[in-house]
């Protein structure tokens, strides 16, 4: 006699090969493999505003000029003037009566973002091809072009996040609206 109970048993047996890990709707599988933070040293590229996550190394704007001209200037120009509104890195004034040009110097609130973005995404045609040392140098050069650091000022994990950005107070956090 074919009963519901037998059907249930048969289907359970047939499905157990794939379904064993999913026992009930309440009990979740746990398949994450444990890792250590140390194992993410090369993987985690986040450089935080407070300085966490910046790698060892250092660089100055004077050192960064050469690499900027060879690796960045195609889009950004030798002096950060850019070839479009999307690639200009310098100038702008948030208080201008016209619609203000928003650049690293006039708009960006955190210096850490300059390092973080170059390290993860630039140069656009070969992201992540700069060494950490070169990234510090190029970030220093971009900050220098904006008049925010001196040409020989050493940028490293301690000094770069401390660079004061002119528009640091210009943002209103809306994250409470969810």
């Amino acid at each position, binding site marked *: 006699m074919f009963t519901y109970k037998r059907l249930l048993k048969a289907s359970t047996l047939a499905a157990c090969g794939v379904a064993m*890990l*999913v026992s009930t*709707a309440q009990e*979740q*599988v*746990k*398949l*994450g*493999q*444990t*890792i*250590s*933070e140390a194992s*993410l040293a090369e*993987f*985690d*590229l*986040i450089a*935080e*505003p*407070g300085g966490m996550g910046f790698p060892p190394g250092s660089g100055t704007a004077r050192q960064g000029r050469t690499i900027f001209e060879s690796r960045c200037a*195609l*889009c950004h120009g030798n002096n950060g003037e850019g*070839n*479009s509104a*999307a690639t200009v890195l310098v100038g702008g004034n*948030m*208080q201008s009566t016209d*619609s*203000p040009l*928003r650049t*690293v110097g006039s*708009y*960006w*609130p*955190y210096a*850490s*973002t300059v390092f*973080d*973005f170059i390290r*993860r*995404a630039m140069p*656009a*045609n070969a*992201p*992540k091809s700069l060494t950490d040392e070169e990234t510090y140098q190029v970030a220093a050069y971009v900050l220098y072009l904006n008049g925010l650091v001196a040409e020989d000022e050493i940028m490293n994990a301690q000094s770069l996040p401390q660079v004061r950005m002119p528009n640091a107070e*210009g*943002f*209103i*956090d*809306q*994250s409470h*609206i*969810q």
Partner: protein
Amino acid sequence: MTKSSKGQNKVLDLDRVAANGLLSRRHLLSAALGGAGLAMARPVIGQEPGIKLEIPAWSKTPGPGTSPYGSSSAHARLERQSGFGNPLYPGGGASRSPLQHLQGTITPNSLHFERHHAGIPAIDPAGHKLVIHGLVRQPLMFDYEDLLKYQMVSKIYFLECSGNSGALLYGGNPDGTAQSLHGLVSCAEWTGIPLSVLLEEAGVLPEARWIAAVGGDAASMGRSIPLDKAMDDSLLALFQNGEPVRPEQGYPIRLFNPGWEGNTSVKWLTQIKVTRNPLQFRDETSKYTDTLPDRSSLQFTFPMDVKSLITSPSGQMRVTQGGIYRVTGIAWSGAGSIRRVEVSADGGQTWGDALIESQQLDKALIRFSIPWRWDGAPAVLQSRATDSAGNVQPTRDAVIAAKGTINRYHNPCIQSWGVNTAGEVTNVYV
């Protein structure tokens, strides 16, 4: 109003709900109009003596058989429209959904809008890892194959780029279409694992307030998401409309934040770092921030506002003869479900309630329609949505009064489509 000799129009005159030809939505439910497409007034039964139907050629020849992956009819091939590519940076850019040619509420995967910051990475899921670390009890790494073994949920959600409709704030664009002006919104069924499940597996520490989500594309694009959202309805989307998420939508794993600006739904998700504070990535400081007239800028503007749009008739379409048209469009809100859509044919002076044709799901597109009789006079068609939180879609003037003209993000304003005496439909500002 001109008296019509046709009995049908005479009845409809009694059911005007707003000026300039808008009729009661009840007529869309009645069989008298046929319901589909452009519902023009039909001639009286028995007055078509010249028509003689024959069996068409395709009914006399066997066609091709099955195919491994279907495609649309050659007579109904729709396309996304690409824009603002930088020749030096071909991977960056966007494509827009052909809203004026779609019906219902689900966007086919091939037509879902795209926005990439460094192109589409060629990810082999066998080598793709998702890491959860930072302020957790135990950092974890997940394989794609293992993620497929988790309990999943399926939800229909819209996704809208916060730059959508930004061009309206510039003015101009008389030749704009629903696609070119508003095509950075789409809607799909997303299937995946609640992010909260994996965060709980790693054990979020009490001091945590945010997560950083980073993609596996060449830009390693990152966004900071408040932990409250991540623990609420954020999804690790593995499937879209039933098939694995497409490469251009984040294969193999996309973070999906329902109702929030599209950029926060990080594609090709590979890293989640649980943190105390937001990380201040480029795409949440330099970009996706709204600069106000006083030069301060709104940051972390997450939910997309209540919004609607007439998709037909719309820009570059033409109404060819007087008669009754099905005015239709879409509406959505990041704050909940759509409760009401009103339509105006006189530039917002009078409004009539549209019929909501679809389900009214939270944070999903709805489809609305209303019958409109065009008599050849100029008209301005608009729609205005209200959501379950009571938010009402604002006019363009109201958006500009509140946020000025520097900003280009988060524009939910009412779209105006002008219809001239020739029946040509264009983007207008009223």
